[in-house]
């Protein structure tokens, strides 16, 4: 016990020296190229089950130091059987400053039948100048199961399957569709209600009141210099609108003779006055007759009288 307390610094220094010497010899820390057998290679195959003549994709990944290069060497076509090389691509990437990755993608057509182990390949290591520094045979454990519907001796390459179209995500869109329909429905409902309300108000407005207001306005426009012929044409339109709404006859799209026939059927009290007014307006509109301002004023007065008498008589 005593002895050990006497030499603790010597034992610690010896351990530190030992550790330093071990690290100093380590190739990674010293920046030396890694040994080929320390490299990691992995192989993946998709899909793992195909029909004879179809293709599989074999991906070889090799992790290596950033100061060296690797290459994949495949055996000749005879040795490759029952596989046939259809295409090959190579990608390099840097995983970390000291570590790189080589990815070799092989498109292999597969023949035969049953479980087929993926072909062996050789990894070739090179230094920065391209000199081969070593090789390593790699036998992957991955395999593919070949299904065949006809003879297992078939050597014909099957055509490539067309790429699958991405499926439209209907379920994701459905809430928006429902929301749009809901919104449209709500808008239509509002429009319907507004229209009904407007119609209700329009129906409750007294046509005689409307016509009276329009006739008063027409009278003031005539006094303001409106041409009498134009006044007569407008008077006719006001009266037709009034007749249509008050007596519920088709007057806006009817000619004077049709209005005459309908009013006669209804036994309207001011029939003669209405017809005189409409016929006068027809003469102005279609026969180029020119009334004086006084005549137009008289016609407006007559129209007001017709509307008043119709109001007293009541709507039909």
């Amino acid at each position, binding site marked *: 016990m005593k002895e050990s307390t006497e030499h603790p610094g010597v034992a610690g220094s010896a351990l530190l020296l030992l550790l330093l010497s071990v690290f100093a010899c380590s190739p990674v820390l010293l920046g030396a190229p890694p040994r080929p057998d320390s490299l990691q290679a992995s192989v993946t195959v998709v899909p793992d089950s195909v029909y004879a003549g179809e293709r599989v994709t074999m991906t070889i990944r090799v992790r290596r130091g950033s100061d060296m290069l690797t290459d994949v060497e495949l055996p000749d076509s005879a040795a490759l059987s029952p596989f046939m090389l259809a295409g090959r691509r190579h990608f390099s990437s840097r995983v970390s400053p000291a570590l790189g990755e080589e990815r070799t993608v092989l498109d292999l057509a597969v023949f035969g039948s049953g479980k087929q182990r993926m072909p062996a390949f050789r990894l070739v290591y090179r230094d920065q100048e391209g000199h081969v520094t070593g090789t390593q045979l790699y036998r992957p454990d991955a395999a593919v199961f070949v299904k065949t519907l006809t003879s297992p001796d078939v050597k014909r390459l099957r055509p490539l399957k067309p790429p699958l179209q991405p499926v439209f995500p209907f379920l994701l869109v459905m809430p928006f569709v429902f929301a749009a329909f809901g919104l449209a429905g709500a808008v239509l409902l509002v429009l319907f209600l507004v229209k009904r309300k407007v119609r209700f108000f329009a129906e409750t407005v007294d046509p005689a009141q409307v016509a009276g207001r329009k006739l008063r306005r027409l009278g003031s426009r005539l006094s303001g210099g409106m041409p009498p012929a134009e006044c007569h044409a407008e008077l006719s339109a006001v009266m037709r609108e009034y007749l249509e709404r008050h007596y519920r006859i*088709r007057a*806006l*799209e*009817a*000619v*004077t*003779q*049709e209005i005459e026939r309908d009013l006669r059927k209804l036994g309207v009290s001011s029939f003669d006055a209405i017809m005189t007014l409409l016929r*006068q307006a*027809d*003469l*102005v*509109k*279609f*026969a*180029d*007759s*020119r*009334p*004086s301002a006084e*005549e137009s004023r008289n016609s407006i007065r007559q129209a007001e009288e017709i509307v008043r008498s119709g109001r007293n008589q009541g709507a039909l």
Partner: protein
Amino acid sequence: MQHAAGLEELGREIAAASAFLDRAEEQIASRIIGQKEVIRRVFIALLAGGHILLEGVPGLAKTLIVRTFAAAMDLRFQRIQFTPDMLPADLVGTMVYNPKDMEFHPRQGPVFANVILADEINRSPAKVQSALLEAMQEKQVTIGSSTFPLPQPFMVLATQNPIEHEGTYLLPEAQVDRFMMKVMVDYPSYDEELEIMQHAAASGDMPEVRAVVRAGDIAAARRLIDRIYVDPRVQRYIVDLVFATRKPAGYGLASLESMIEYGASPRASIFLLLAAKAHAFLQHRAYITPEDVKSVAYETLRHRIIPGYEAEAENVRTDDFIREILQHVQVP
């Protein structure tokens, strides 16, 4: 109210000049019972220089109406029965060899008359139909190398039987469009039929029809019709009606949009105006009103509107379209 001076004077002239029509109407009524609207349409076509397509079942006195009309108007009448074996030369005439002078001379066919009744026009092949329709359009006929003008007035009244289509050659739309009006001859009313029966049973002889029109009356009437005033409002109303057959949705008739395959052609606007003017003349008026236009709208438009498949499936007729249009297009 100050009336247009020219129109008042024209109105008086029209009243005097149209008196012959009243006389002719009386004469025709002495032989024809009922069918007054058909007769008025024939007058309108004659005054407007148009032709008529008469359609009605057999036995409605179509031939008698036309024959009587021609007699009352003092016009040369010719009835041509169209048959499947007919040739254009049978209609317009041909070149005939004269052995005396050893030359070909034109011999005019039955089309050289004032009033032609083309009976069952759809029984003859297309070449004969088109020969007649060309004569209608050009008002002249070419035989060999000579061209002969047709006598004036010249009016064709073609009849079609609507219930019998076997062995007939349907008139193409382009040919039908050349007729100013298509007049439907309907059955007489109960009282009219009773009267027809009593007259027919009383004696075999028909009442005599006198010619009541002086030479030049029709030409003078046509000149007056040309002067009839048409207000721009009425012109626009006519165009509105025709446009409503083409674009019904624009006139609040969206339901007709799919029903009408083809609307009326520009000929419809022209004939509608001419027929409305002639109608105003019959009313002794110097201006036309929308009433005149409406009165002739059915006859002028019905053969120019081509109904679509949907209309045929739902048994909607062109007259129904016209009724809808007249009820929706605002009158000026």
